[in-house]
Structures are given as structure tokens and as C-alpha cells.
């Protein structure tokens, strides 16, 4: 009998599994639960985008594409970034089409981290950054962002976290789970600290199309930032293409060159039929994005007001499709609150500490659901809150 613990990769074994696994297992056993837990759009990929993929299959486009993705798709992405965000990346050697935004994050980390390098991660945040940094030999350094700052990363917090070992700053905005965004002004404060250093930035902009009341700004737009920034983005949230696994990196060619090596050996290329679908999305999908964003916005207003009306404090989320209310006044931990809400109220939401220790005292509620679903959930939630008062 092999001693697997001794044999297998220590790094892999030391990665902590998701802390709320047992909660989710319980959730799947219960019937009649109204869930507000998911992290992906409820929309199905628009039909014309699906047709483009089906078409490519009918035409027999089943071979590998060029490693960094088809030139057409890269060009389409380049035009889109120019048009939407005033960012200029050369499709020839500054764009890689990846297997989801997830691979984009992985490439950026593997191409930039040397063993022992520190990776600054503002939390609450999506769960992947720490583990991926560790797998690349890096050391995660957590910044606990604060509700009073609307969960934005402040220059003071950043300055305090920087050490001589700092290699990379992760900027996950618009943010999952808080819905926080960083405006141009906010980013300028961060850029000011980074200028003149050798610290790189991984800007996870997967939710860039889902901002409400203002246009998204990338840190790469600011002076002195483009040369050190890898933008990781993709099609999942904007075009409701989560299952297609379509993402991309945007970065200076020197960084792209190294990431491409990792991508070539580990992945070869992103799925060909997904690339054809993504091309259609880039070229003709802007109306769909707008339609979905408007719908998310309506739900956002409904849910934020609904939560505030029942005494749940939440700052106004300006991006993504999550709201992050503060439940500490009820005297329960996040997990206790969610467990009780599930058992007594029949509503499932995600405890905030799943996204970092500073998420304790908060819960994440997703509004990637229909209005009628949200209204039913709010009704049940209201009744539950009343039992706590």
C-alpha cells in the first residue's frame, strides 16, 4: 500500500480545501430551498452565439487552433478593448485566449512568481488566488479590506502590506463577493504606490461589463501601470458563457511571451468551438450584454432595498451580481446565520468567511436569479429575520 501523503506533492496537499464544503453538501440534500448562492449568470448563452459554435462544428472545425487562439478572435478582443475601455493590446503578441478567466489567473501567476515571492491578495475575494499563488511557489499576503471603505483596497492598506519580497498585487474588481468597484480615483491611489516599484499587478476584470452607474476603469489605463499589469478577463459573466471556458490575458509582450510558454505546454489551446462562439460574442453580442446588465441592475435595486427594509445593512454594491450584507448585529457567526436560515427559513446563501477571514460577520447573496425568485427569497428572509429580533 503506497503512502500517498509521503509521495504526493506537498504543495498540493497543503492547499486547504474549500472551508464550506460541508455546508454545500447539506444544502444539496434539502428540498424546497430557495437558493441565492450561485456565482454564475442565470441567462443562457444567447442563441446567435450558440449557433456560431454549432456552425463551426458542422463545418468540421475540430482541430487545435494556434496556441494563443485564432487571430480573428484575438483581433476581435483587441478591437473590443480599444472600443470599450480605451486599452490598446496587439493581437499578435499581447493577447492569449485562455481556458476561462481561471487559466488567465494561473498563467499570470506562474509566469511572474519565483519561489518565496509574496502575492498581495485583498480579501474578501474569490477563493482561487491564494491556492494558485501557492501552487506557483508564492506566499499569499492577505489584506483585510473594510466595510467602512466599501471594501475597496486603500493606498494605506497596500503600503502596509508591501515588503521587499512583494512580487504581485491581485486586484479583483469588480469584486466577488462584495460587489465593490474601484473607480479611476481609487485606482490612482494604488497606482501612486506602485509607480517606481517592481511590483506587478494581476487585475481580474472578469466582471468588467457588470458595473452599475459608471463605466469600468482598468488600472492599466493609468500612467506607469500598463507595463506591469496582466489583465485577466473573459466571456463567462458578460456573455453568460461560463461553461464554454473562454477567457483571455492582456499584457505587455514580454510578460505574454512567458505566459504563452506555460499555456503552450500545459493547455495547447483553448477549445476551438468555444473560440468561434466567442468571436460571434465579440462582434455581435453587445446588445445582449446591455440587456443582461440592465436586468441585473433592476434586480440589484430590488434586492438591496429589500434587504435594507428588513434591517440588513448592506453598502451599495456597484458591480458583479452580489450583495454583501452585514449580519453581525444578530449575534451569530456567518456560518451559524446561514445554517439557521437554511434550516428554519429555507433560503440558502453563502457565509462571508468563505471568501476570507474578514468576511466573517457578512453573507454573500447572489442576484443571478429571476425577479420572482428573488422576491420569494426576500419574503422568507424577512420572516426569518423577524424571528431573530
Amino acid at each position, binding site marked *: 500500500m503506497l503512502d500517498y501523503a509521503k509521495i504526493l506533492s506537498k504543495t498540493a496537499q497543503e492547499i486547504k480545501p474549500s472551508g464550506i464544503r460541508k455546508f454545500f453538501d447539506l444544502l444539496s440534500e434539502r428540498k424546497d430551498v430557495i437558493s441565492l448562492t*450561485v*456565482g454564475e449568470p442565470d441567462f443562457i448563452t444567447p442563441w446567435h452565439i450558440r449557433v456560431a459554435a454549432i456552425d463551426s462544428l458542422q463545418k468540421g472545425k475540430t482541430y487545435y487552433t494556434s496556441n494563443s487562439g485564432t487571430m480573428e478572435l484575438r483581433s476581435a478582443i483587441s478591437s473590443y478593448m480599444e472600443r470599450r475601455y480605451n486599452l490598446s493590446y496587439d493581437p499578435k503578441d499581447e493577447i492569449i485566449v485562455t481556458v476561462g478567466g481561471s487559466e488567465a489567473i494561473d498563467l499570470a501567476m506562474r509566469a511572474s512568481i519565483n519561489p518565496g515571492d509574496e502575492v498581495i491578495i485583498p480579501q474578501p475575494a474569490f477563493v482561487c488566488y491564494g491556492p494558485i499563488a501557492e501552487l506557483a511557489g508564492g506566499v499569499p499576503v492577505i489584506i483585510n479590506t473594510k466595510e467602512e471603505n466599501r471594501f475597496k483596497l486603500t493606498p494605506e492598506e497596500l503600503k502596509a502590506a508591501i515588503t521587499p519580497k512583494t512580487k504581485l498585487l491581485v486586484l479583483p474588481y469588480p469584486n466577488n463577493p462584495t460587489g465593490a468597484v474601484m473607480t479611476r480615483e481609487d485606482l490612482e491611489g494604488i497606482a501612486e504606490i506602485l509607480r517606481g516599484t517592481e511590483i506587478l499587478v494581476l487585475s481580474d476584470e472578469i466582471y468588467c461589463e457588470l458595473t452599475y452607474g459608471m463605466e469600468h476603469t482598468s488600472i492599466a489605463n493609468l500612467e506607469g501601470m500598463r507595463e506591469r499589469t496582466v489583465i485577466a478577463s473573459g466571456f463567462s459573466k458578460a456573455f453568460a458563457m461560463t461553461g464554454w471556458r473562454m477567457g483571455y490575458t492582456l499584457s505587455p509582450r514580454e510578460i505574454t511571451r512567458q505566459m504563452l510558454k506555460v499555456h503552450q505546454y500545459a493547455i495547447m489551446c483553448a477549445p476551438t468551438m468555444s473560440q468561434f462562439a466567442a468571436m460571434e460574442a465579440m462582434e455581435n453580442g453587445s446588445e445582449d450584454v446591455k440587456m443582461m446588465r440592465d436586468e441585473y441592475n*433592476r434586480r440589484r435595486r430590488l434586492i438591496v*432595498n429589500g434587504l435594507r427594509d428588513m434591517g440588513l445593512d448592506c453598502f451599495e454594491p456597484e458591480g458583479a451580481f452580489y450583495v454583501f450584507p452585514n449580519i453581525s448585529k444578530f449575534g451569530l457567526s456567518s456560518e451559524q446565520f446561514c445554517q439557521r436560515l437554511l434550516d428554519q427559513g429555507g433560503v440558502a446563501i453563502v457565509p462571508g468567511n468563505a471568501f476570507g477571514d474578514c468576511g466573517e460577520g457578512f453573507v454573500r447573496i447572489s442576484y443571478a436569479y429571476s425577479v420572482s425568485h428573488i422576491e420569494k427569497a426576500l419574503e422568507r428572509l424577512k420572516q426569518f429575520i423577524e424571528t431573530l429580533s
Partner: protein
Amino acid sequence: MKELLKLLENDAKLSPRALALMLEKEEGDIKAMIEGYEQDGVILGYRTVIDWDKTNAEYVTAMIELKITPQRGHGYDLVAEKIYNYPEVESLYLMSGGFDLAVFIKGKTMREVAFFVAEKLATLEDVISTSTHFLLRKYKDNNVIYGAVPVDERGNII
């Protein structure tokens, strides 16, 4: 306001408060707009969509194509009025193309529907010919998809 109408058309149960929040308007304004639309006949009613196939109701629906000789001075309106006043007639449309009026009839049995066409429609002075088609299955009606109840397949929570 078109957005308000679209939201209500999709879900008549939305409260003025929910609509106000979603459209960034005052609740009072929303209520006033709805009342205005009702008075002007823009909003004609609120109906519940029922899939009768899921009950044990016995019924038959048919679409009848009518060819009409329009009366001098009245066009199609007079004959349309005669037809749509029958309670059996669910819908009546004036169409372009190979026939004039599309009539949707609901009855308890095929025989009942056939007799309605023969005795009440075909006999109308203006009617030249009728062609009856029976509805076999509703896939989608008025933007509602009939059949299987959609299940949320999304599993990944983070």
C-alpha cells in the same frame, strides 16, 4: 413608459413598489402611470397563464381561416364584431395573405367546434369560405414556454 409595460407584461404580479425600485422611480409615479395606461386602454387587463393540459380539463382549440367579402363602407369591422362577440371565440385577427380573418375557437369537443364553425361562422353573410385546423400542441404562447418546468442546473457556488 415602455420598460414599465414590458415588466408588467411579463409579470402582472409585480407590486408598484418593486416596479418603482427596478425602474428608479417614485412609487406614486408608477401607480399613476399604471392607472393612466388602464384608463387609456393601453393596459387592457391582467390574466393568469394556465397550462390546461396539466389539469384534467377536456377541451379542443381550433384555428379557422375565414375568407370574407368586406361590406361596402364598413370594411371588415362589422363582420369582425359579429364574430368576436361569441364567447367561444378566444382570438380574432385580421391577416394579410391567403385569407382574411384568423379565428381561434375553444370548445369541449371537436364536434362542438366543428358545429360552431358550420352553424355560426360559415352562415355569416360575409363569409365566403372557412378552413378549420385543430391545434395539436402548444409549445409556446404569448412568450410563455409550455411543457417541462425548468430546473436550475447551476451547481457551482463559488
